[in-house]
């Protein structure tokens, strides 16, 4: 599904290298988790994959189902099936949540040469999906993320994911700012989307999210590289012992 090889990335404005050779392969239907201390490059990896400005890839490659991602515009990556659930979902005053979602869904369908969804069909689908995420009609009408609580914003990200039905979902610290109940709700939303044709890359600081979204593979990232890969137990090890032991062992 996703294949990242020897990815080196630096900030466009500075010489500072942030990713120093990331290798990562995510198979279809699998959930991979990336854990790591602050500043290890986790969020940068998610931004670079989704095509945000400000980063320069100096070496390596990233492909989604064999297609070179790094050559595509952000909207083309989305249409190709990539989705990033933002750590800090953006507020967009003046754009209704529903209008935004319908525009996005239809833009992707159009880019893939599929028919656009009619207003009625779209409404039917979104109502059902919103309900399972406890998103009420009011939240759908309001401007995108404006005045949403932290939990509402993250639920809205998952709703977008559910509507866009991507193949490769990257969740960037989706657990940050969530209380226990909200984390459960968001996790259920994610788990409902688990499918043998859909893969997940879950970026998190903490093991607790992984209690709800059970990963197949856990990676530890430090200083711009994946330094250790293991099964779900690796997350527990981090939770108990912190990163220091693992990093000492690697170094």
């Amino acid at each position, binding site marked *: 599904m996703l294949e990242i090889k020897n990815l080196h990335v630096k900030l466009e404005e500075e010489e500072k290298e942030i990713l120093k050779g990331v290798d990562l392969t995510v198979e279809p239907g699998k959930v991979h988790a990336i854990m790591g201390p602050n500043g290890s490059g986790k969020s940068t990896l998610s931004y670079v994959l989704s095509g945000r400005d400000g980063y320069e890839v100096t070496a390596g490659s990233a492909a989604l189902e064999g297609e070179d991602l790094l050559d595509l515009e952000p909207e083309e990556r*989305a249409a190709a099936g990539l989705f990033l659930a933002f750590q800090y979902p953006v507020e*967009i005053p*003046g754009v209704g949540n529903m209008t935004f979602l319908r525009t*996005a869904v239809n*833009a992707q369908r159009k880019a893939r040469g599929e028919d656009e969804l009619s207003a009625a069909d779209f409404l039917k689908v979104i109502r059902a999906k919103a309900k399972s995420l406890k998103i009420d009609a009011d939240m759908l009408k309001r401007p995108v993320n404006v005045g949403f609580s932290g939990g509402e914003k993250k639920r809205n990200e998952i709703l977008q994911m559910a509507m866009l039905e991507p193949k490769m979902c990257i969740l960037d610290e989706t657990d940050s700012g969530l209380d226990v109940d909200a984390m459960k709700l968001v996790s259920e939303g994610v788990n409902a989307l688990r499918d043998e044709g859909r893969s997940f890359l879950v970026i998190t600081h903490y093991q607790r999210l992984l209690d709800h979204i059970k990963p197949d593979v856990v990676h530890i990232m430090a200083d711009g590289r994946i330094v250790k890969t293991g099964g779900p137990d690796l997350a527990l090890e981090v939770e108990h012992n912190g990163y220091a032991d693992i990093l000492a062992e690697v170094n």
Partner: protein
Amino acid sequence: MALPQAKQTATEERLAALTMPDAGCTRKAREAALARLREMGLPGRRDEYWKYTRPDTLISAEAPSAALFETDEPMMFHEFDRLKIVFIDGVFSAEASDDLTMEGVSIDRLEDICCKDIHWAKELYGVLEARGQTPVQRPLAALNTAYASDGVAIHVTGKPSRPISLIYRHASETSDAILHHVIRVESGAEVTILENGPAASRFNKCMEIDIADGGTLHHIRAQGRDHQRRAATHMFTRMGTESVYKSFTLTVNGVLTRNEQVVELTGDDAVAHVAGACVGDGEFHHDDTVFVTHDAVNCESRQVFKKVLRNGATGVFQGKILVKEGAQKTDGYQISQSLLLDDDSQFLAKPELEIYADDVACSHGSTSGAIDETALFYLRSRGVPTKDATDMLTLAFLAEAVDEIEDEALAEVIVSRLQEWLARRS
């Protein structure tokens, strides 16, 4: 004090090109306006109030020519059931207009009231314009009162079932139109006034609006079409107790537009909202100059102006809230914002508050900026192509001003016109 020589010469040159209509009951008002104008002189480049907008082409003896915008598109508001009053190059066209009778309102052509010695409009014609000359001079409005060649007097006594639609067609490339309308809204009456069209190569329009206690006037205006047209407009509104005035202007195209709004809240608990959205491309200069005076207790005023500018377009906002002594519990709000779609465009803003009462809530803000890159990336990351995403954010930026329109159907028409403008971009 004598006028500077250059100013006096420019003023006299302009006046020499004009003829005062034979004016019946407005004669005195016109002569008084001419005297005012001679004292002030027409605006010059060095006048503080014209610091950001060059008045030269608005005061020249001859109007610069303006090519007609070739299009088959129907004019704005065509889908609405309304009473149409049509002016072609500033001349009333009975043929193109509807029958001017409607329940709850009486409409007279200015020319007809000019022949009468007694008419209600006599008490209004030039009166609010004259009041609006202090503390800031508005010479083009005085010129209008003195020389207006046409216009209508609208007396609203009830709640007419349809909006009154003033349509300004442009047919001659060198037309120079001066129109003056007076509107009186009686106590408890309510009306919607629509205005649209380029009017002329150069258009000087003045509207005096007197809203009695409990009266309501909605005003929606669309200025657009002809790229080379020029306009200087004034709206003088005096408001009684618990009266409501809501005005929205959309400006698309036009090489030069100066819209002045002078609102005076003279009765308690009155509400005045003036808003505008303009989108300008290239050789486009748009100036909103607003002066709201609070002279009563517990009144609310809002000024919401949004401008989208690209390819070297210029936007100007001069807005003032004056709260007079004793105008306690005033709630005054003013926001002017521009979205600059490139580095060549500019926005010049002069927001002002002047407050002489101690128990008021007044706020103002003015910003200028580019498209929010973070929001743009967010939309693109969801699959929305860059141009569509930019358009969405542009419309969202304008939404706060468009939201000032209460009638949803009218607001939709404005939004669709904005979408067309965005779509025209290659």
